[in-house]
């Protein structure tokens, strides 16, 4: 099934999110939709999948004009989308979710549904336990479930909006293999939205690049990274330079930490982070990194061991005590942990401004918000509700909320979901604080990021923590093997 969009326009207030976009997608091919954060990719895809109605423009399927204004309408014409943020479905199981996502009567045929589900999962190489509650699934597994659900609905055009954000490398390769199979063997049209060049280069047959709401070019693979970057940003970016650090006193010291979650038990974890140092925590999701970061900011209680900040034992103390001790924390989920949907930008700055008295000085709040907006190049106004900002801009707000010189900065996936330029910019901010003596500890699933910015790297594998002997010379490839469970030293014999 081929899809064509003609002269699509969509505005949000003053923002022209889609400005006269015309594109054609043929069946059996995988298209990359590339562009930095806020380029208008999600908007175009939401129009195609019926979540938004275009202000003007046409959608044609196999040359025939179609009209719909709901996601259901889109699915009826054969277009289905995996949203950027998977919908939360609470305590239902995988199978229940699958069944209730279909048009069923009051008494669904569970046996048939189970067979159909298993069949689809098998074919795509997804390992999903039908009776697992959906809330226990990882982001990647939820995507797999959603793909199966859409396919069962007979979708012929599959749209994926930033699907590689927040999933492991392993899940990514399963996903890519399944997408390729769907395109090559079943002739589906795949639209793959991303701001990550390497994903698009690896997977796609053709690419369309958006910038500031406009289509700036299309290309058929192969193209070079340089060409794509030039299209995305209008210029080529130089790779970030690596700094030399002379670490100061120990800021964070973790002794014999013993913690457990549903997925992993971590014993005898020893960590030390010094002022001016960047320590990267590598590992597959759920290997224990998050237990460590949460314990170091007072959001999780260790079962044993001690956490010292500047030599003071803070084990088991609440989050606010850590804040008072000069610890700053940036969590992975922006709107779940960190920003308050429903509050404006200015209100966020008022809440975190120690200079505000008990009676709010709104004018001061507005001024500070404007300063930060300018300094952190946030696309938004002081009175913009935070949830209307794009992901990249939300990340910038999170950075702007971190005080200028914390003693310890703990970050989870600081650039997840950001385009190359925004990620670089975030790191400039982190490194500037580091140069001022802040100790930094961060988790990331992006090996490049870990290798580029860490002075030391700790690898987490099933709760075991090992330090990479020479983080400054480790390659992405070597790190990848360590994360997969190979022990330090073994890679030499490979």
């Amino acid at each position, binding site marked *: 099934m081929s899809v064509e969009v003609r002269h699509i326009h969509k*505005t*949000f*207030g003053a923002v022209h999110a889609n400005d006269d976009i015309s594109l054609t997608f043929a069946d059996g091919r995988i298209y990359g939709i590339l562009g930095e954060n806020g380029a208008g990719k999600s908007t175009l895809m*939401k129009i195609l999948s*019926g*979540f*938004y*109605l275009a202000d003007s423009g046409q959608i044609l399927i196999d040359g025939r004009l179609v009209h719909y*204004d*709901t996601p259901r309408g889109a699915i009826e014409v054969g277009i289905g989308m995996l949203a950027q943020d998977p919908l939360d479905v609470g305590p239902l199981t995988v199978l229940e979710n699958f069944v209730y996502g279909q048009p069923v009567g009051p008494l669904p045929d569970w046996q048939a549904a189970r067979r159909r589900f298993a069949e689809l999962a098998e074919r795509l190489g997804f390992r999903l336990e039908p009776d697992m509650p959906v809330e226990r699934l990882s982001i990647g597994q939820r995507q797999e479930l959603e793909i199966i659900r859409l396919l069962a609905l007979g979708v012929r055009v599959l749209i994926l909006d930033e699907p590689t954000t927040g999933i492991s490398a392993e899940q990514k390769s399963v996903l890519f293999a399944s997408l390729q199979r769907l395109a090559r063997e079943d002739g589906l049209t795949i639209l793959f939205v991303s701001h990550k060049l390497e994903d698009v280069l690896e997977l796609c047959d053709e690419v369309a690049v958006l910038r500031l709401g406009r289509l700036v070019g299309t290309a058929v693979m192969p193209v070079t990274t340089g060409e794509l970057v030039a299209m995305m940003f209008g210029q080529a970016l130089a790779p970030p330079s690596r700094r030399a650090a002379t670490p100061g006193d120990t800021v964070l010291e973790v002794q014999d930490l013993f913690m457990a979650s549903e997925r992993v038990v971590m014993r005898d974890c020893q960590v030390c982070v010094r002022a001016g140092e960047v320590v990267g925590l590598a590992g597959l999701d759920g290997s224990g990194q998050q237990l460590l970061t949460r314990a170091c900011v007072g*959001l*999780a*209680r260790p079962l044993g061991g001690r956490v010292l900040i500047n030599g003071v034992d803070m084990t088991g103390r*609440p*989050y*606010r005590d850590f*804040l008072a001790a000069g610890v700053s*924390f940036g*969590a992975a989920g922006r*709107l*779940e*942990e*960190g*920003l*308050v*949907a*429903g*509050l404006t930008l200015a*209100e*966020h700055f*008022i*809440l*975190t401004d120690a200079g*505000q*008295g*008990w*009676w*709010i000085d709104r004018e001061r709040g507005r001024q500070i918000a404007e300063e930060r907006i300018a300094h952190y190049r946030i696309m938004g106004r002081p009175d913009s509700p935070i*949830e209307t900002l794009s992901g990249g801009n939300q990340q910038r707000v999170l950075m702007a*909320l971190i005080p200028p010189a914390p003693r310890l900065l703990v970050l989870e996936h600081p650039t997840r979901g950001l385009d190359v330029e925004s990620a670089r910019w975030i790191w400039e901010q982190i490194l500037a604080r580091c140069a001022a003596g802040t100790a930094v500890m961060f988790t990331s699933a992006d090996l490049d990021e870990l290798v580029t910015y860490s002075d030391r790297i700790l690898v987490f594998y099933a709760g075991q923590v090992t330090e990479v002997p020479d983080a400054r010379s480790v390659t992405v490839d070597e790190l990848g093997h360590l994360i997969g469970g190979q022990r330090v030293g073994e890679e030499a014999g490979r």
Partner: protein
Amino acid sequence: MTRSSLLGQRALALGIGMASIAVSLLLTALIILAVGASPLEVFNKVTEGIGLTPTGLDMVRFSGVVNFWIPLMFVCTGLLVTFTAGLWNIGVEGQMMFGAVCATWVAQEVFLPTVVQVPLEMLAAALGGAFWAALTGLLKTRGGVHEIFGGVAMNNLANIFSIYLISGPWGNQGGQATPPFRQETLLLPMSSEFRVSAVALILMAVVFGGIFLALSGTRWGLELKAQGHSQRSALLLGVPVERNVLLAMALCGFMAGLAGSVRVLFTYGNLRPLVSGGIGFLGLLVVLLTGTRALWAPPIAFFFAAILGGSTRLKIALQLDQSLAGVVQGILVLMVILANGVRGRLRGRHPAQAPEPSASLEAEEAAIHG
């Protein structure tokens, strides 16, 4: 979006609001017809009931409405605080009852000049209500018990406790009520015409104004708003979430206690079972309708007070059950909620996240603070 389409949306929203009121009136009329009465007659009796007569305003009856409105507004004021903080303070009924019990204790056991006596009673009621609410708050923050469950339990406890007092140590009227309080312990009406307590009315206005300012202008109000939207994010932004839960609950209980004191010191002049009379639940309804738009609370609360006050006339005049008022209320609420839903649907494909109190984070919170 263009200016004209914005205007169009406004008009649409207004239209939907009007339509929902029209539909609820129509439904009410149908129900009245179904029970074999004349809607017009009922309307007349209700307006008569609130004091609107062809010859002018009947002050005595009108004061009945105001007297219902005052404790309702105390409750609404308190509930605005908990609602902003994302808390469902179902326990507000029990807080009223316990406040009433405390006021009764002072009225019966303390003998002071009226100018000291009455304020002391009201203070005791307020503190009692605050204490009762704080218990529910503690159950939530320390015990991980959701405030809805805690609140229901505390409502029952307060009810049983007051019944025990009435039928046991404090009662002498066959378990129906305590003996009437002495004249010096009561709140008194302004005049024999307008039978409303000036003290209660003024205090209510002051308290409502104060809470309105606190919620809209202070850092604490902003903190509550933040944690009402996302407790987790607020915590990470450095808001003392747990302390604010307790404070918000206690403050709401404080108001509920005041409402309870008005019921015993003015409405009844003694303590009886279920002295709260459903005002707490009605307050929840009002705040549910106004959301965080505090300024809407007084008129909506007044409207409910009028319907309820008016309907007491129905029973006498038309032999209709006064629970009809409850039916009308229910229909109205349904319609308003429905209208909100319709508006949300028409507004766009992207349904805005409703700023409703969320129940999802308690477990996590409990886990964090262990």
